[in-house]
């Protein structure tokens, strides 16, 4: 008798791996299929290519696609333009206030988009803090800045929301590649500008491309920001139109046509992202530094210090002003609509006393959101661990296939996923399962983010740890729980925290799936904003921000403690 030891060794982790794969079929592939087939069936549910060809000829679809691409392109340019100087400062200089940039640039990462929307309304709105401030300076009664409900607002919000991606991705890469080639260029007589253009720029280009692709992807499939800040059909994107067509106009064919275009374009962008990531890894290996950056980092000169200071001040203000505005406004109140404001805890009192109207839903919104987030993480985290094993250990030679497989949830927007679940629930004819559907949707939406945390940790985990444990007599299950899981602990915690934070702020799929009775924090915020009850929205938003901060503090504590 011959035992297949290799297979035996990994039997437990293969079980996890197949759990992840099997989960994807009903929770991801089936709903996506449900959406896409709507582009090929007529109202009597018969296959019809005519539906699809007429969709492709529709000027409406191409107008929406054009605007979606345009706003994503402009937003990406803005985010890169703000982010690149930050990446340069962060990676090339050493100075005291460095942590401020790091801290400030993580803020938008953990903020739900609906809070960003609220912050923009409160800060940049006609009655917002910025306009009030300007009006009191210039003594006018007309707000000088009219930003909201326009393309400007969309691009500004996207820039705000995404420039930290550029900072962290480019700076992280720039820190790791050596500057020996620059020094070599100087010794050969090249001036600074020439060296930057001919050596540095080609070197960091993959990182810029990579962050640009990711930012473009996020802006392309952005939902809440467009829905509220766009303000109307003229500033509408594919995602928002999918939602409107499916849930307002009940035109599933158009929704499916838009979904196909969205998935195709997103897949291309995702491919660019993956390819540039691969080139970055190659470059990091190629330009690997022999001396740590600390010894090379230079203190900026006087002029440089001033410029850095200005950058930190502007970027810091840009990021924090809308958030602080939300928090500040939540403690304000007005007697009449035009009356002056005063400090009060009125909105919080209303939140905690089960009162009237939308606010009476507060308690159930919070408990629903927390329950959904925890349940989604409970599904997504084991699935992500399993998928990581599947990708990296089951068949490492064909890892690119499985890697593409798991990346697909990134190319399929959460609106499309939500719509797929909605169609499934229509078949089931039973909307009472929609909390379960929301949980499943959130699990799939958060899956790629957990994978992005767990996969590198698993890839870097030395095989010899598990081999050593096995040779010491531990069986595979024991090896997994006593060695591998503890070694992946930090990655799993950080993935879980991100998953919970994303779920807490998720509105796209939730909005499509939720019925009248189901409310979550972002849905509550959306309703309050929709009914212009900004003070109450700010109070709910402040609590959500507090929850996110608490979540990440707990995460930091666990990382230190465990």
């Amino acid at each position, binding site marked *: 008798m011959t035992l297949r*030891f*290799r297979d035996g060794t990994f039997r437990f982790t293969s079980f996890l791996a197949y759990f992840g794969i099997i989960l994807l079929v009903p929770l991801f592939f089936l709903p996506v299929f449900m959406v896409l087939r709507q582009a090929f069936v007529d109202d009597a549910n018969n296959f019809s290519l005519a539906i699809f060809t007429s969709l492709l000829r529709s000027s409406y679809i191409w107008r929406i696609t054009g605007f979606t691409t345009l706003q994503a392109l402009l937003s990406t340019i803005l985010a890169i333009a703000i982010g690149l100087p930050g990446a340069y400062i962060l990676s090339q200089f050493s100075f005291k206030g460095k942590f401020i940039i790091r801290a400030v640039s993580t803020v938008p990462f953990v903020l739900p988009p609906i809070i960003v929307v609220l912050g923009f309304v409160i800060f940049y709105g006609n009655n917002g803090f910025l306009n009030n401030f300007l009006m009191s300076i210039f003594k006018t009664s007309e707000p000088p800045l009219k930003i909201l409900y326009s393309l400007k607002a969309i691009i500004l919000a996207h820039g705000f929301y995404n420039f930290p991606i550029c900072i962290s991705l480019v700076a992280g890469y720039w820190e790791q590649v050596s500057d020996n080639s620059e020094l070599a260029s100087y010794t050969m007589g090249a001036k600074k500008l020439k060296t930057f253009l001919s050596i540095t720029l080609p070197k960091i280009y993959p990182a810029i491309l990579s962050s640009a692709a990711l930012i473009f992807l996020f802006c392309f499939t952005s939902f809440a920001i467009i829905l509220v800040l766009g303000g109307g059909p003229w500033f509408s994107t594919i995602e928002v139109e999918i939602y409107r067509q499916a849930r307002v106009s009940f035109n599933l064919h158009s929704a499916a046509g838009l979904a196909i275009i969205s998935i195709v374009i997103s897949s291309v962008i995702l491919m660019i992202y993956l390819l540039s990531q691969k080139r970055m890894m190659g470059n990091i290996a190629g330009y690997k530094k022999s001396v740590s950056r600390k010894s090379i980092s230079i203190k900026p000169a006087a002029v440089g210090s001033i410029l850095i200071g200005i950058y930190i001040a502007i970027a810091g203000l840009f990021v924090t002003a809308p958030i602080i505005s939300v928090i500040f406004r939540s403690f304000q109140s007005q007697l009449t609509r035009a009356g002056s404001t005063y400090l009060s805890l009125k909105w919080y009192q209303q939140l905690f006393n089960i009162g009237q109207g939308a606010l009476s839903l507060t308690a159930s919104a919070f408990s629903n959101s927390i329950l959904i987030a925890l349940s989604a993480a409970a599904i997504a985290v084991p699935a992500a661990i399993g998928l990581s094993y599947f990708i990296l250990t089951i068949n490492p030679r064909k890892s690119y296939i499985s890697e593409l497989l798991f990346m697909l949830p990134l190319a399929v927007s959460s609106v499309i996923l939500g719509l797929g679940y909605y169609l499934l629930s229509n078949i089931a004819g039973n909307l009472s399962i929609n909390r379960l559907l929301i949980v499943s949707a959130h699990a799939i939406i958060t899956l790629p983010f957990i994978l992005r945390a767990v996969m590198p940790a698993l890839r870097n985990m030395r095989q010899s740890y598990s*081999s050593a444990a*096995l*040779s*010491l*007599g531990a069986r595979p299950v024991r090896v997994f729980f*006593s060695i591998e899981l*503890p*070694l992946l602990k930090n990655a799993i915690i950080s993935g879980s925290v991100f998953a919970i934070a994303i779920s807490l702020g998720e509105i796209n799929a939730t909005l499509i799936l939720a019925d009248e009775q189901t409310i979550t924090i972002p849905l509550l915020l959306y309703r309050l904003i929709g009914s212009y009850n900004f003070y109450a929205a700010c109070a709910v938003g402040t609590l959500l921000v507090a929850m996110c901060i608490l979540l990440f503090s707990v995460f930091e504590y666990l990382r230190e403690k465990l």
Partner: protein
Amino acid sequence: MNPEKNYGLDLRGIKKIYSDFILDITFSVQRGEFVSLVGPSGCGKTTTLSVISGLLEPDEGTMYLNRRNLLTVPIWDRAIGFVFQDYALFPHMNIERNISYGLKVKKIEKSKTISRTNTLLDTIGLCGYNKRLTDDLSGGEKQRVALARALAPNPELLLLDEPLSALDAQLRQSLRNEIRRIQKDLAVTTLYVTHDQEEALSISDRIIIMNNGSIEQIGTPEEIYSFPKTRFSAEFFGKSTLLPAIINDSDSCTCTIQHNEYTQSSMHYFQAQNTTVESAEGCFFFRPENTKIFTTSDTNSGQNSNIFPNAKVTGCEYNGTGYFIECSWKGFSLLAFSKIKLVPGSLVSVSVHGSNCLFVSDEKI
């Protein structure tokens, strides 16, 4: 002879076939013996250890350890200790928990586990290190802990995969002696992989030379160094001169050095009794330290001496005890040894006694 009686570890016709590499090995390690597995990187040393430990399953062959058929036993029941090149100390456990991991897995009584762990810490000279974290240890200390951890469950076989390769030269030397001492004390059957030939020569009972997935030669360090059986073995251990040759007469042990148009016949070589040379074509082999160098034309150094007259010195390299002299002779490169420094360009005669020369056939024996 029943191999299972005499040998701790017995591998026969073990094959592991990859698309670009085939491992095919047969060897035995006696109970309590210390055997080194040497060879260039990529020759299959680590694959061999993986197959023995159970991390890899062989495609063919039989494998016994103290009469137990290993192939029917999964890795966790093989009772084989493994010391990895990167130590693989579990970073989330302190030293004590690392060492006792194998005991806890076996559900050994707690008091016994504690005393065994402390005994092992004492053995490796790290008393009181119980609660230290692995990150706080030096490379040498990590290596010792890895050894103690592998030894804790009383393995029947100890496998060490280049355990000293990450350490600096001085530490390597003292640690290899310590490994040898502990191994002798515990009388644990040991297979030690290294690519360092000096290390293998100094601590092994026997050495196995591997090349390209198969075994070139097995022997004691003395045999391996003085009587290489293949060209590869001769070149792998130490410096040597190898000249293309054909056997004239295997009874009188003479051969002809032959290269292009040039030949020199009646070169004497040594052949151990009861051995045969498989192929008449091969190499004439000697070590530099067995040579004598004459600067005069008086080269009469007696019977069975091989003389290489009129060799031109091309290089002179000092090694602390003398000079390695590189000479060019009839287009060949000879390596000799001299107590005195020689100027490149000068003409010398190199002599080496036939009893110090070998004929190494190109074929494997």
